[in-house]
């Protein structure tokens, strides 16, 4: 009896593995393989074509203690992440709550706000470069109506990163969609009960809505944090491939790409990618550790 059950279980497990085999092969070949290779090569002077000599920790030492642009690029990236992640999260929640109200023309507004998330890539960046133009751009024109003398946006090193963050805020529609889906799932009875107890709108939002959508907030924060550290394209396009005034748009991945494909210092670039991996890994671990304190799963028993 016992043995048969075991076999059945094992067989089922095997079948499962067979089903996910394509993924396993793909993962080992195209993700785990290169990942390991880059770890090994980060301890060499690998340049893709002609050399790969072991140099110990030299790449890492140089990065942390000698490289003048490593800290610049890391600072730029941290600045961007520190502002863009909270702002886009709050922006997306705010929008989704607004668009969850019962007002006429709701579908129209939902479409309008979601539209930017559909558009992406170089076209949008070029469009924003025009919008942010200091003298002829729409943004400064509108600011002018309110008597504000708009900044030089992409030409002023103080404003280049805020420019990018502003552009990101315009595209919060993707996150908004997630929040809207989760808002729809919040049980109406909770609100009814609260109303009967005399809770205000704000109290309802603060003590019902927010806790109920924390799993999605958590997901959004983790993924956009990881994505934020990998910012590259925006800076590359919007600085015309130069890193922006005073290297203010020289983000981590951008600098890494320069090292890898411009001067073919691949070992060095791989060391950079591992440092970034460690940073993001630590931050994500902290996130996961903190999660139980504020993330609320429905039906979960709280101690």
């Amino acid at each position, binding site marked *: 009896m016992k043995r048969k059950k075991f076999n059945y279980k094992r067989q089922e497990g095997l079948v499962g593995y067979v089903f996910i085999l394509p993924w396993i092969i793909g993962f080992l070949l195209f993700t785990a393989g290169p990942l390991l290779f880059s770890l090994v090569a980060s301890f060499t002077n690998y340049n893709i074509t002609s050399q790969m000599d072991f140099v110990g920790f030299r790449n890492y030492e140089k990065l942390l203690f000698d490289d003048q642009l490593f800290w610049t690029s890391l600072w730029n990236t941290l600045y961007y992440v520190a502002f863009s992640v909270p702002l886009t999260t709050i922006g997306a929640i705010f929008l989704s709550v607004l668009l969850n109200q019962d007002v006429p023309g709701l579908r129209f507004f939902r479409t309008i706000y979601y539209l930017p998330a559909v558009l992406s890539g170089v076209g949008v960046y070029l469009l924003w470069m025009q919008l942010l*133009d200091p003298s002829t751009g729409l943004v400064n024109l509108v600011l002018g109506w309110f008597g504000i003398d708009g900044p030089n946006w992409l030409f002023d090193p103080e404003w280049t990163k805020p420019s990018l963050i502003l552009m990101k805020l315009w595209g919060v529609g993707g996150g908004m969609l997630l929040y809207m889906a989760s808002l729809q799932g919040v049980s109406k009875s909770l609100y009814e009960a609260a109303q009967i107890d005399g809770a205000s709108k704000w109290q309802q939002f603060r003590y019902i809505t927010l806790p109920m959508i924390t799993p999605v907030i958590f997901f959004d924060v983790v993924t956009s944090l990881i994505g934020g550290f990998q910012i590259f394209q925006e800076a590359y396009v919007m600085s015309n491939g130069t*890193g922006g005034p005073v290297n203010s748009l020289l983000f981590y991945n951008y600098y890494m790409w320069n090292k890898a*494909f411009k001067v073919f210092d691949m070992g060095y670039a791989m060391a950079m990618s591992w440092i970034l991996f460690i940073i993001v890994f630590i931050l994500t671990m902290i996130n996961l550790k903190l999660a139980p304190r504020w993330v609320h799963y429905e039906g979960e028993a709280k101690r």
Partner: protein
Amino acid sequence: MKNMEENELFKKRLLFSLMAVLLVLSGCAGFQTGKENEVAAEADAEGKVVVDFWTFWGSEIRRPVIEKIVEDFNKSQDEIVVKHTFVPWGDIWTKELAAIAAGDPPDVVINDINATALRGQKKQAMNLSEFLEKDDISARFYPELWEATLYEGDSYGIPFNTDTRILYYNKDAFEEVGLNPEQPPKTWDELKEYAAKLDKKNGDTYERLGFYPLFGVNYDVWMLNGSGHNFVSPEGEVQIDTETNLETLNWLLEWKNHYGENVVNSVKSQIDSQQANPFFTGKLAMFVNTPTFYTQIRDYAPDLNFGVAMLPEKEEGSGHTSWGGGFVAEIPEGSSHPEEAWEFIKHLTDKEAQEYWAVKNYDNVANTEAAEAAAKSPDMPEKDQVVYQTAVDNMQNTLLTPFPLAAPDFPTLLNPEIDNVLLGKKTPEQALKDAQAAVEQLVEENKSK
């Protein structure tokens, strides 16, 4: 100077990607011709050696020209078939690198001349000296271009096309303010003097700007013009914090202060938008750009009465040094048919093909004889010839700034310092001193590798 180059390349890259998108959008027409070509090449290939030739020339204008050159070569003999593959600008060199690493590269690739020596050093491009010993074609090209392809004395790529920077000026505006339209400025002082005369102000706004040195080119071109050499010598000597560069930087700063941040930004954005270049409309009297900028004048402002000249020199006798770049044909390391590839490269850089390219694309070519001939080509209208001739003459003033092997990415350290000066956040003295130290450190680090 990488900065400038990148800027230029970057614009082209955007153009190409947009074109690639258009090609897809325009339906299958583009695809089918491409496929037919390939099929034809495959059929022809029976018993012949196929040479895979990668370029980023996929535009409506360039593609037919390069394909005609390929076709001529294929017809001229019956042993080799060249297959032209268009790879978009954004991908071509990373794909090439991957193909080399995988051991299955194309046989001929068009690449950036500024990184040819670097790729030679890294064994990405093949050492061509064995072919050059048999037939030495080095005398075909401008010596400055040839020099740029050398790593430790051996060539790793054969120059194909090039460019330079010249001064365009509005003759009508010159006449209006009493300047001789046949006498463009010859020195920086004259340039400033003429510009002041050409400035036209209405209240607080400029109706016309005389000149601003950082439209069309970057600071590095003027520093090269002033000093006559790159910031880092091929041997790795850093020459940033020099008296000459300091003077140049101060000169640039004077221009900036003369017009002020807002005027400069607003005119620059008009130039960048490529919709209404102020030079076309007479709102900018003098402008530095490449000879191919002429084709834009021809297309968008055919009635503009303009002249072209060499860049003014810093002071009398310092030299009208200009700056250029270009592309080379390389054989990637590991190509399976290098001999045949070489045969094709010879054809590609020979007078006939080069002249055809020059005339059809209105582009500067590397082959001296072809360039001279193109300037006199009956296929070019007179005005085209005048500008082209100026470009050809200017080649003797033109220097290239190939990436110095000791510090190929030094501009990422220099650019921010210069930015700071122009933004008024650092004194020129301090900035040059800091940049000198930073680049010296980079050279040191690279040595220890």
